[in-house]
């Protein structure tokens, strides 16, 4: 009889690629970089959020971005968010709110109260900003509220809030009807940002430099697409676990040569792995997609746990915040700000036309179907982080709609008359529940029991699949 059957539980998460392994130090480097920039005082340091298509503007004016969501994520990954969350709660903020924001506000309040970094602040702590750039875009209420709440404890730090809406998908409307005024608005908002930053930095925008930086990030977008497309290979050379590292250059380093070079290296590494037939897991049995939800940053090991069961993650929807520019049909313009606005709209409406062509489809559902087919996916895993409505409301509806309109698995079932009948069924899915950084919401035992059951279900489907 077998001895105790324990799954390998690596303390430190292992990555499939060297590139992903190099990310940790990189993040540490730019956190220390912000502290250094502040100390030297030559560059202005600004709190801000990812996915606002404003990195080029920041960098053209030499403003150092402090990605506050990133810092909260680091606190989470280091399992050191709880004391900041508790501090936020003691201010009257509910634990049910976005825990990134709670962590950030708790940290800010503490730092301001002490006049210095809180004790043992992760990686030296989050620097006091010169100003804060928030973005109340169509998604994410906490973004417009977070810095406003933090400002209570540092009222001398100004906020500039840019609005970046995009037209929501409506079945019976061609979004092109409204793109014009959306574009005009976004352009004005981004120009407002330029004016604010010029005033803060006492510099004039160099539009040639801005144009170059926009060109650089466009090239990076395309390169990321090409690189991630390589993950279609069987076996898959890089999974979502790694992509939760490689999201760093996508989301925190855009418009830098370093980000571009990172993907040159990653692409080369993946090509080599594919040539050697090397997969993320040794014996790839199941190909899964991370179909929605931000990860539990303190539990990225769960990806390794999936891997230990032969499950690889060739695709995800989370943090792949780029789309192929050549498929977007963006209007030509010499004005880099106008281009940023078009690219913004192009990204968010990318799946609209395709969704309209498939009855019952919808952009998020369409994207799932597309990835399932392109990446030969056997099952969809999602994560519902209780504190974030922005990325986690609508997921179960997407799964519901997906199962309604897309049934790719042939099966034999015993009919009422006792005869075997061939039918088609939807892809199986698994919804994990916890949070982005609130570890009190997470149970490793429950999560892994669910993963076990899901992998056994995948196996059951594999063996019962009709020819």
């Amino acid at each position, binding site marked *: 009889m077998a001895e105790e*059957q324990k799954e390998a539980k690596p303390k430190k998460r292992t990555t499939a690629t060297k590139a992903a392994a190099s990310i940790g130090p990189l993040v540490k480097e730019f956190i220390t970089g912000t502290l250094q920039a502040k100390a030297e005082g030559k560059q202005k340091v600004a709190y801000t959020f990812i996915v606002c298509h404003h990195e080029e503007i920041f960098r053209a004016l030499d403003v150092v971005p402090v990605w506050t969501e990133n810092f909260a994520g680091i606190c989470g990954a280091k399992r050191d968010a709880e004391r900041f969350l508790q501090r936020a709660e003691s201010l009257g903020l509910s634990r049910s709110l976005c825990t990134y924001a709670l962590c950030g506000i708790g940290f800010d309040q503490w730092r301001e109260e002490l006049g210095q970094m809180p004790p043992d602040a992760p990686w030296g702590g989050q620097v006091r900003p010169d100003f804060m750039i928030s973005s109340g875009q169509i998604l994410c209420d906490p973004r417009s509220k977070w810095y406003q709440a933090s400002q209570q404890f540092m009222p001398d730090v100004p906020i500039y809030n840019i609005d970046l809406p995009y037209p929501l998908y409506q079945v019976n409307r061609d979004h092109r009807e409204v793109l014009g005024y959306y574009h005009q608005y976004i352009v004005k908002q981004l120009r407002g940002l330029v004016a604010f930053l010029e005033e803060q930095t006492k510099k004039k925008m160099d539009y040639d430099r801005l144009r170059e930086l926009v060109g650089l990030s466009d090239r990076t977008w395309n390169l990321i697409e090409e690189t991630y497309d390589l993950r279609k290979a069987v076996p898959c050379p890089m999974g979502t676990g790694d992509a939760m590292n490689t999201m760093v250059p996508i989301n925190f380093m855009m418009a830098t040569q370093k980000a571009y070079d990172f993907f040159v290296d990653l692409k080369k590494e993946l090509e080599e792995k594919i040539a050697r037939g090397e997969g993320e897991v040794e014996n790839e049995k199941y190909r899964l997609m991370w179909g929605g939800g931000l990860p539990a940053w303190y539990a990225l090991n769960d990806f390794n746990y999936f891997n230990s069961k032969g499950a690889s993650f060739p695709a995800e929807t989370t943090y792949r915040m780029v789309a192929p520019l050549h498929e977007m049909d963006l209007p030509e313009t010499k004005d880099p700000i106008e281009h940023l606005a078009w690219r913004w709209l192009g990204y968010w409406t990318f799946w609209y036309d395709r969704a309209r062509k498939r009855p019952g489809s919808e952009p998020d559902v369409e994207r799932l179907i597309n990835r399932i087919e392109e990446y030969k996916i056997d099952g969809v895993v999602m994560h*519902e982080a209780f504190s974030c409505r922005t990325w986690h409301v609508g997921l179960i509806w997407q799964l519901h709609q997906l199962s309604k309109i897309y049934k790719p698995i042939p099966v034999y079932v015993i009919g009422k008359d006792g005869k075997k009948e061939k039918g088609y069924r939807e892809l199986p899915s698994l919804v994990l529940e916890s949070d982005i950084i609130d570890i009190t919401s997470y149970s490793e035992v429950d999560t892994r*029991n669910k993963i*076990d*059951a899901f992998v056994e279900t995948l196996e*059951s*489907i594999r063996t*019962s699949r009709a020819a």
Partner: protein
Amino acid sequence: MSFVLGIDIGSAQSKGVILGDQGSLGSFECASGGDFKLTAEKIREELLSQAERSVDDISRTVATGYGSKLVIFADEIKSDIVCLAKGVSSLLPSVRTAIDIGDLYTKVLRTDGHGNVHSFILSGKCAGGSGRILQVIARVLQVKVDEIGELSLKSKKRVEFNTGCAVFAETEAISRLSQEVAKEDLLAGLHRALAAQINSLAERLGVEQDVAMVGGGARDIGLIRAVKEIRGHDILVPPHPHMIAALGAALIARESLTIQD
């Protein structure tokens, strides 16, 4: 003649089944207690004594359930989803959707009559709808858990709960008691609320008939009736519904013997 064991260590109750070539030779249930390892040993001993066999006679043991990883003598650990599908298909092959009412979770799974699982879903943290609330209420009302089903059927005037949230349902139930409602009416209301949660979970997965209810909670006829009412169709309940996962585990143990042969 070969003998196999299926052992299901749940968070509240643990169950075991012993199978010979001709079928079941015994079954046993006890509280899981604090020491799952010890509980597993106890179940094995009890099953062996029922079948008049010794440890060496057992060809294979499959463990399942919340504490399955602590069944150190098991040859294999299987998730309860797979075991439930196997168990329910062996007894009720027409079942396509099985609902397992456990202590911590309610689980719904879709199967094909052969014991293959196609998909499953577990009740969420917030949605509630697991069997624990019944135990809590039984304690509050000072009735035995296995009596609440019968009792609730006597209800003439069901209490309507305002919330479906398990945490609030508990406090609401207690506050209703202070308003002197009859026990059976309270239980009927609770069954209704729980049934609505269960139904909502099942609908999230998608329901194909026939539908069976299994697990400890399926012994509660009041709950079964409430689910039937909400769904508007019949619900099958196998005999000894709480044993289904253990039975499935034993069947899996036997199958892998056949494959090895």
